[in-house]
């Protein structure tokens, strides 16, 4: 994984931890964020919105269909940077 991809993943994990008020160190790249954060789809959309603003990108919801781990989420973001 390149440094940029790693940075993106780190930022995703930091933002998720901050938004849902969980310790950053409790989150791992392969975690299922629905289960790990205990969130539903509406909360996942709020995370998506926050990530779009942070990275200044558009990430259509349908590209998120089936994505449930931080690593894949970061990869989808990376393709838009």
């Amino acid at each position, binding site marked *: 994984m390149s440094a940029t991809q790693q940075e993106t993943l780190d930022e995703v994990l930091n933002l998720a931890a901050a938004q849902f008020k969980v310790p950053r160190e409790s989150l791992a790249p392969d975690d299922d964020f629905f289960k790990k954060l205990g969130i*539903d*789809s*509406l909360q*996942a959309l709020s995370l*998506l919105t*926050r990530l779009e603003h942070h990275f200044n990108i558009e990430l259509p919801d*349908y590209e998120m269909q089936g994505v449930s781990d931080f690593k894949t989420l970061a990869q989808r973001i990376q393709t838009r940077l």
Partner: protein
Amino acid sequence: MNEFHGQAVSWSIKDGVIELALRREPCNEIGSQSLAELERFTDALPELEQSASSIILYSDLRCGFCAGADLRELHRRSQEMAKTDAVSGVRQFLERTHHVMNTLDASPLTTVAAVHGIVFGGGLELALVCDIIIADKTARFCFPELRLGLIPGFGGIPRLRRDLGNAVVRDLLLTGRGFNATKAQQIGLVSQVVGEGEALRVARSTAEQIGKFDRQTSAAAKKFLKPLPHDQLRREIDIFCDLFTRPAVEAGLKKFVESTDTQPYLP
């Protein structure tokens, strides 16, 4: 009635500003209770309008402004009736909803929607009746109706076509994709984007500014700028009811209502 506190909405008037708050858990889904209380509001409007210059619509709930029509109630009711009765019931519901939306849209007062979080389907259609939409950065807008085999039924397409370019409307409708407040501002849907939790404060500040102007002049300007697309709104109800009879809609509603998918709101 200058003040009302219902199960789904509440309103009050202060310093010439009417504030209508949505407050039905889980995310202000519009069903029969919400509609009845919104009708009560529009019935009270002629009297309220005498001492006001603007209306602010906002949500009291953390999840967002409004997640749209109450699909669970729609599904339950349609299951309880014969198909012809269900279509008739849906048509009646849409007629009543359009009456509320059109009354707000054409109100001589200036209307401001202060939105955050989820602004989906019928919730986006409710925001669209307002003259000014102020969104905080958490807002997410979406027309997910096509995944249920339907089109928006609360006046969404005619109002979007009135306010935005047709190409943008096609993109939003035909992909069902969500978009954030910044995008909404870029396409001309939202006029002001503000920080998280700031939409209502900015809406109040905007209403204060609106209150400085002569009411009749503001009403005349609004009437000139924002005609109601009556024919298209009528056509929308017809198309919605035609589509509603198709098996794909029943299947789509059933899938949504019975879904154990963690992502039912991700179109």
